[in-house]
């Protein structure tokens, strides 16, 4: 009898394990963070360890947050961020006074602020020239290079005095665009300490070589010469600490003694630590947004951090099977009508994402936003989708998938089936959910969507520009997922995205009027061309417009002040302070 009872216990044991999970309940108030009293710890996104300290970007060393570290140590010539409430120049965080353009718009005069390097040397125009010389000498290895733009478009550099210089351009540019998207690339570098070789190319190679030695960041004297509000305290692959630079002479001195950046393997790991009070400034995975109240009771304030970005799914217009179909605007309209952006934003993103109907970031800044884009020309409407297809000669086949019955009406060969494959990022609940929702709604309109989820790298490697004949053009739709939103520089023009043959125009979208509008947006001084561009692409649907998720949903220690959630993804850590 005893034996039998025992066996029963073993079976019951199986059943009872899960109930442990139920017992989760509120913990007590915990002191957040891991450092001393005037320090703050910040949680980095999963697998995003900064890996490049040199403020000259190099392909392959493009971890997010490199820029945050760099700009805290080396003040950029011009900083743009959203700290003022909309995206614009942040004068305090810039190394120079606002630029003065010549009336013909072909040259610009810039005056540096009286900043000092931490070894006591003043920052001078030579430091800017040092940057320009190196980038000119090694532009092909410089990560931000784009043919025809910086440094090709700067034809002359003229030193007026130690603090003033003039740049001459090859043609007239829109000053707003030039400052925001070109001058922001420049960072004065400590020429006296870093120019180990008079030849700028060799100097560049030397610095890059040094910067590749991550293990030596702590000790390398090069990186001790900084002019920003912070200096490097310690650097390891799992944790980076910046300490206040006591010799900073600018107007934007740091309040905190130290800021520590923590790395995490997964957002779940980060969230566990957040709940246990291990970080001051972390993020909440969307799936855990239901826990807002609990986080608040733990002393965090929970705020979405909106990005200066748009999110979309490119069509591969070069795909041999469906490229022709994708070229049909009515089909793109039918697909866009089947995207329930509001529901995806509300349910899957828990209200933190913003529906996006066009090429301009829609939630931060109304300057460039057209009414067409704002008002959504193609709202969620499955009947509209079906009607568009029916009107153009498509009929559902026996399996419910639309089939072209009339080549003339369809614009594609008779018998073409609306069955398409979407290459998407794996490992994200929100992406999975979005894809399932998309698949589900499209299926109701008779469009079959096959989801092929792959690690982000595979998606990136496969979903790129291709020739129609190449096997690489097998992809039809690709979604980079939550990490794949496009973050604009300060001026959200589309020269990299939707211009014919642009670098990131993966789907080979070609539209002459669009090209003209994009050119106008960078060269003309009026902002109307941007508004027209917004309207044009909201109507033309070069891609499937998707809800734009926030950069992250932050959980910030309520005792941490001075935080602006900058849409440009900057942190301005020097302005953080503790209220307790």
């Amino acid at each position: 009898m005893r034996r039998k009872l025992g066996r029963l216990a073993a079976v019951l044991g199986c059943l009872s394990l899960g109930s442990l999970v139920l017992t989760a309940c509120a913990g007590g108030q915990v002191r957040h963070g891991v450092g001393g009293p005037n320090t703050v710890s910040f949680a980095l996104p999963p697998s995003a360890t900064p890996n490049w300290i040199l403020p000259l970007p190099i392909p392959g060393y493009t971890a997010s947050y490199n820029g945050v570290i760099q700009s805290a140590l080396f003040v950029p010539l011009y900083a743009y961020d959203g700290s003022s409430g909309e995206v614009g120049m942040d004068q305090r965080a810039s190394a120079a006074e606002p630029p003065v353009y010549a009336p013909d718009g072909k040259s610009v005069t810039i005056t540096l602020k009286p900043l000092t390097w931490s070894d006591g040397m003043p920052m001078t125009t030579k430091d800017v020239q040092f940057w320009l010389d190196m980038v000119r000498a090694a532009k092909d290895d410089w990560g931000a290079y784009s043919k025809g733009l910086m440094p090709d478009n700067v034809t002359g550099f003229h030193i007026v005095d130690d603090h003033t210089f003039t740049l001459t351009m090859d043609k007239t540019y829109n000053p707003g665009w030039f400052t925001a998207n070109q001058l922001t690339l420049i960072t004065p570098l400590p020429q006296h300490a870093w120019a180990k070789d008079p030849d700028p190319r060799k100097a560049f190679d030397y610095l890059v070589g040094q910067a590749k030695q991550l293990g030596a960041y702590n000790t390398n004297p090069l990186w001790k010469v900084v002019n920003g509000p912070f200096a490097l305290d310690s650097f390891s692959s799992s944790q980076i600490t910046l300490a206040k630079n006591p010799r900073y002479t600018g107007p934007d001195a740091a309040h905190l003694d130290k800021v520590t950046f923590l790395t995490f393997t997964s957002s779940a790991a980060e969230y566990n630590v957040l709940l246990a009070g291990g970080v001051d400034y972390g993020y909440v995975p969307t799936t855990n947004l239901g826990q807002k109240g609990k986080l608040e009771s733990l002393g965090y304030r929970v705020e979405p951090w909106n990005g200066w970005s748009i999110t979309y799914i490119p069509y591969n217009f070069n795909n041999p099977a469906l490229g022709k179909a994708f070229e049909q605007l009515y089909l793109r309209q039918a697909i866009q009508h089947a995207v329930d952006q509001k529901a995806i934003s509300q349910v899957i993103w828990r209200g933190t994402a913003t529906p996006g109907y066009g090429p301009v970031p829609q939630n931060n800044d109304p300057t460039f936003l057209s009414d067409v884009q704002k008002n959504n020309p193609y709202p969620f409407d499955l009947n509209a989708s079906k009607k568009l297809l029916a009107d153009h000669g498509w009929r559902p086949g026996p399996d419910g998938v639309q089939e072209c019955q009339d080549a003339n009406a369809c614009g594609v060969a008779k018998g073409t089936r609306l069955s398409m494959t979407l290459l998407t990022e794996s490992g994200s609940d929100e992406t999975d959910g979005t894809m399932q929702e998309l698949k589900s709604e499209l299926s109701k309109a008779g469009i079959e969507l096959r989801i092929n989820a792959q690690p982000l790298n595979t998606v990136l490697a496969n979903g790129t520009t291709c020739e129609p004949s190449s096997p690489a053009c097998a992809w039809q739709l690709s979604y980079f997922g939550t990490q794949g939103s496009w973050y604009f520089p300060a001026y959200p023009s589309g020269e990299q995205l939707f211009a014919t043959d642009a670098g990131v125009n993966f789907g080979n979208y070609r539209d002459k009027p669009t090209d003209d509008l994009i050119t106008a947006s960078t060269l003309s001084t009026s902002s109307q061309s941007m508004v027209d561009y917004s309207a044009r692409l909201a109507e033309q649907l070069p891609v499937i417009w998707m809800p734009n998720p926030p950069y992250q949903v932050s959980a910030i220690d309520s005792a941490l002040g001075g935080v602006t959630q900058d849409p440009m993804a900057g942190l301005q850590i020097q302005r953080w302070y503790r209220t307790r």
Partner: protein
Amino acid sequence: MTTIALPVRSRLPRSRLRGNGLALAGTVILVLVVAFCLVGPLLYPTDQVHTALDASRLSPGQQGHPLGTDDLGYDVLGRLMIAGRTSLAIGVLAGLLATAIGAIWGALAGYGGGWLDAVLMRIVDTGVAIPALFLLLVAATLITPSVLVLALVIGCVSWLVPARLMRAEAATLRERDFVKAITVMGAGRLRVVFRHLLPNAVGTLVVAGTFQIADAILLVAYVSFLGLGVPPPATDWGAMLSKGITYTYDGAWWLILPPGIAIVLVVCAINFVGDGLRDALAARGRA
């Protein structure tokens, strides 16, 4: 305890003489679970293809969902059934495949002996030394997962343990008099392997197979946990669990407990059955 990705986990010899109570309990549980997964959807049909964002995250009992709904509005009870089909199908197929490959491999090594044995077993050693997780990650980037593909992949990374078992068994059987007698009288290698070694190892293989199935179900759970599982809207218990785990702090227990219990229950049950089979075979061996 589990072992992610542990095709390589050394299988534990389990106790003999644990009466058949547990085995019976295991069998009953398995029958119930299989019936639940196969017959359940007929009695309780739900839409597991189309999302219903307007009915997402309902707690149990709301709007006629006995176990609530998940974040996309799928009915959890219905989802548990179709997820079970995937988990069980992959588990059984992968377990059988692994056992079959392992059996033949091990029989050849154990019976062949000499250099053949050395070569085959070094390959097994190599396989054991490469983390299965690595192979699975690579496989996932090469192919689109489906039930068959996953079963194939998991089967192909977990045949090592049965191979070692079978090799040991074959090496023992090779020395048995009946094998010697028939070899001496002119039986060929194939005849010995297929007519004598494999049938005699069936007991070991059946036991190994059950444990292999249990392991495969866990492995599927891991693979899904890593985001490499069957593509949605199909799902399996591991995928449900890993998704549910993200809702731990919401108190959405209905997203965690059902798949969690299902996995633990089925794996326990299969292990019970495996133990029972081992006992039964041990008893027959003694008779």
